[in-house]
């Protein structure tokens, strides 16, 4: 499970893509057309990108993503069949 702190981004501004064994998470903030005067800026929405390698035992088709309250959660279920204990006969 991956957890990202993306406070301030809207779900529409986040893109998740898988390619081979890599999962790419990127943010694309919409243009801020607010004509507001900035007094203090400690966090800014930016174009960001991050790659994470998908472990071999993950079922790629079942990868899910949830975004709530600024936290993006990516759940990568493992293939149970790959982790078996083998009995010695």
């Amino acid at each position, binding site marked *: 499970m991956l957890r990202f*702190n*993306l*406070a*301030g981004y809207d779900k529409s501004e986040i893109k998740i893509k898988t390619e081979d064994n890599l999962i790419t998470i990127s943010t694309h903030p919409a243009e801020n057309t607010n004509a*507001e005067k*900035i*007094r*203090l800026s*400690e966090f800014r929405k930016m174009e960001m990108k991050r790659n994470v390698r998908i472990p071999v035992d993950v079922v790629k088709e079942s990868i899910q993503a949830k975004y709530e*309250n600024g936290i993006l959660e990516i759940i990568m279920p493992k293939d149970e069949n790959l982790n078996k204990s083998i009995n010695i006969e």
Partner: protein
Amino acid sequence: MKRNFFYPITPMANQIGTMVEDLLNNGLNDFFGGQAFQSTVPAVNVSENDNAFIVEVAAPGLKKEDFKVSVEKGYLNISTSQEKETEETKENYTRKEFSYSKFSRAFKLPEHADAAKISGSYNNGVLKLTIEKKVAIKDEKTIEIQ
């Protein structure tokens, strides 16, 4: 630029980590008292338009009810405390875990901010407070030079 700030230390335990800044000046990243305690200081954006000041606090993973916003003696206080308790019962033992995280931050409100008119919303992990500006009382008199 002349910096115009101060860092009062309040003896109350729940004020640990409080930062006091003047809304009209740039904020500072270091504060008196150090970070030896559990509380942290979240990132804040402050902007203004013609009608109001807007304070945004980046605090993901919380609920609207977790925040406590108050105005005291001209200071806007924003704090949160989140208690998490998990309990696990097995045959021989019960395991209980308790985690506690909080932050607290204060800002000096400028004169023309109306402390009675504050509204807030929590969206995408950002607490957005809108503090309306006091409506200017038109008290201008043109004095004729004779």
